[in-house]
């Protein structure tokens, strides 16, 4: 796999840029060093495809951190069980209150995030919270510990629309190096999770790699393979990719292989060209300048006004942060920036009414 | 007795077996499918199935097609 990338020639890059269906070989070429001189052309093509598929829009959402308890020991993460930080898990009422702050600010899509500690925050909690929030938010996503298919099905019934679960790295050796303990140390269980999410009938599943762990080019190709597999086996399920790029966190973990903004933009353009329909997230880990520059060039979903500590929006004694935010702007400011670039910030792109209570979307 | 074969009324001897009827028509039983009163007969049954008065027969075979 790595070989395909390092072997790629300029001719293959140009071929991939011109092709309607570049395939994995084309993706490898677009991720390769040979493609770097053609970043401008890649940006142009990525922009055209994004415009055609998504129009001149950018979906906005906000994360709600529910809990900083975590049973895993991931060397790169602020919530690692090995770190001494103030741990907090919100009560359902507190979570609802945080969500309503965001509701008043204008958000209609929420991402509910927690560390992976089932004893502190499990399916019952999420189900209860979803039932409470579903009528006030157009879409609810979760980014929590990997669950079983039946559990995802329960949550879908309760009103959760999509699930994000990032492999962090598709490189088994690096994965073992950075995941020292907890259920997350099981590479395969995590890898199989997006399929379980789709199997359960969720509308959308989000995958991603934490940039800075293994070689970003290889991660890009692995993400492409994962997307292709999911498209083939779960054609009804929407797909998204996230690009969390390592930032300072508790534990001061330095990226093993730093990824520059140029690298990140190349990865985004390459995946957009490879899969015109995939949603692409760019979170507030990135600077405002970079995020503004990328509007229209590939990404389709931006968070805003994010706080990565449980209770951080309105509660006292918020817990420790998962990561430091790069773009601190409010929803109003981010929306203004989106509009300034000639795009429409979309706060609501779904409706709970389409997902009837007790409605099962898809079987196998 | 009367039977209907491929939409046409035919007079045949009472209690005639399907196999004999096919021979009478000059048909090779191995290339013919017989549907009798809505039920598809197996080849083995040709030699034992007796036609009734008013039976409706469809005699089908493969023909050219796209």
């Amino acid at each position: 796999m790595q070989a395909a990338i390092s072997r790629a020639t300029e001719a293959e890059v140009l071929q991939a840029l011109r092709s309607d269906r570049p395939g994995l070989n084309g993706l490898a070429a677009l991720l390769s060093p040979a493609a770097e001189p053609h970043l401008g052309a890649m940006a142009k093509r990525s922009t055209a495809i994004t415009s055609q598929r998504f129009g001149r829009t950018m979906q906005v959402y906000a994360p709600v951190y529910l809990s900083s308890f975590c049973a895993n020991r991931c060397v790169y993460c602020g919530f690692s069980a090995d770190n001494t930080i103030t741990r907090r898990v919100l009560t359902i009422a507190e979570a609802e209150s945080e969500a309503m702050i965001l509701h008043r600010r204008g958000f209609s899509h929420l991402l509910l995030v927690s560390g992976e500690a089932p004893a502190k925050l499990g399916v019952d909690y999420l189900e209860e919270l979803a039932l409470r929030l579903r009528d006030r938010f157009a879409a609810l996503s979760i980014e929590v510990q990997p669950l079983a298919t039946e559990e995802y099905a329960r949550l879908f019934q309760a009103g959760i629309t999509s699930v994000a679960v990032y492999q962090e790295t598709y490189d088994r050796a690096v994965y073992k190096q950075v995941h020292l303990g907890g259920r997350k140390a099981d590479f395969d269980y995590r890898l199989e999770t997006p399929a379980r999410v789709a199997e359960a009938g969720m509308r959308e599943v989000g995958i991603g790699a934490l940039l800075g762990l293994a070689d970003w080019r290889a991660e890009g190709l692995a993400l492409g393979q994962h997307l292709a597999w999911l498209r083939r086996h779960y054609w009804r399920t929407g797909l998204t990719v996230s690009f969390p790029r390592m930032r300072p966190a508790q534990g001061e973990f330095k990226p093993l292989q730093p990824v520059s903004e140029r690298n990140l933009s190349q990865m985004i353009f390459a995946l957009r060209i490879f899969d015109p329909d995939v949603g692409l997230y760019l979170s507030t880990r990135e600077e405002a300048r970079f995020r503004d520059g990328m509007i229209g060039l590939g990404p389709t979903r931006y968070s805003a006004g994010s706080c990565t500590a449980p209770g951080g929006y309105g509660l006292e004694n918020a817990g420790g942060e998962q990561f430091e935010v790069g773009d601190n702007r409010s929803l109003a400011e981010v929306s203004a920036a989106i509009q300034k670039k000639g795009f429409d910030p979309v706060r609501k792109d779904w409706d709970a009414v389409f997902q009837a209570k007790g409605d099962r979307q898809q079987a196998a | 007795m009367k039977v209907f074969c491929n939409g046409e009324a035919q007079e045949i001897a009472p209690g005639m077996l399907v196999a004999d009827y096919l021979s009478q028509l000059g048909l090779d039983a191995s290339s013919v499918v017989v549907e009798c009163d809505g039920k598809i007969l197996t080849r083995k049954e040709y030699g034992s199935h007796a036609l009734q008065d008013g039976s409706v027969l469809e005699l089908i075979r493969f023909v050219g097609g796209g």
Partner: protein
Amino acid sequence: MLTIAGRKFRSRLFGGTGKFSSPEVMKEALAASGCEMVTVALRRIDLNNPADDIMSVLDRDRYLFLPNTSGARDAGEAIRLARLARASGGGEWLKLEVTPDPRTLLPDPIETFKATEELVKEGFKVLPYMNADPILALRLQDAGAVAVMPLGSPIGTNQGVLTRFQIEIIIAQAQVPVIVDAGLGAPSHVAEAMEMGADAVLVNTAIAVAGDPVRMARAFAMAVEAGRIAYESGLGAVSKDAAPSSPEDGLGFLR
């Protein structure tokens, strides 16, 4: 090597047996085509002409017979024909054709889907003839079809692959072999279908009514091979705008 429902085929050209001027011409043309599977239909025997058994000229050891349900106008009729086909020693293979409109002979998607579901349950290897609808192709595969047969253009019209755009999508998404069927009027049409990535093609009218069906069959065989080799060898992309190295306008924000 093409594999459909576990069976291997060396040739990616399938033949139809209809519309030939005589059984002898049909036999020679199919031999010239190199095909290994031929479609056949089911019809009432002509009692005034009992010896007329066109299919007896074809060697059942050489050709896999693929009975079709042509004439069926709904799922019920198709299912009945399928069972008759199986009883006539046609095996479990079935080209499911449900065409209620005799003018266009276009396939009914709803009846085709219903019949596919039922026939798969009864153990048939169903190859549904369908309009080039990518979602329908996915639904038929999910229902258990062993291949899909999207049309290039309506039966007998010889218009070629008018449904190119949709067939490309079907091929990209398919988990079973895609056999482009109907409307393939010239060798260039089948080459085009194969270059797109189709797994096989089915040709009947264009060969049967050609001036010289035997030579035409050979031409089609060569075109199928050429198209397939081209596809496997990696065709160059059709050029859109040639912007090999654009200046990095709009990327000034990158650090």
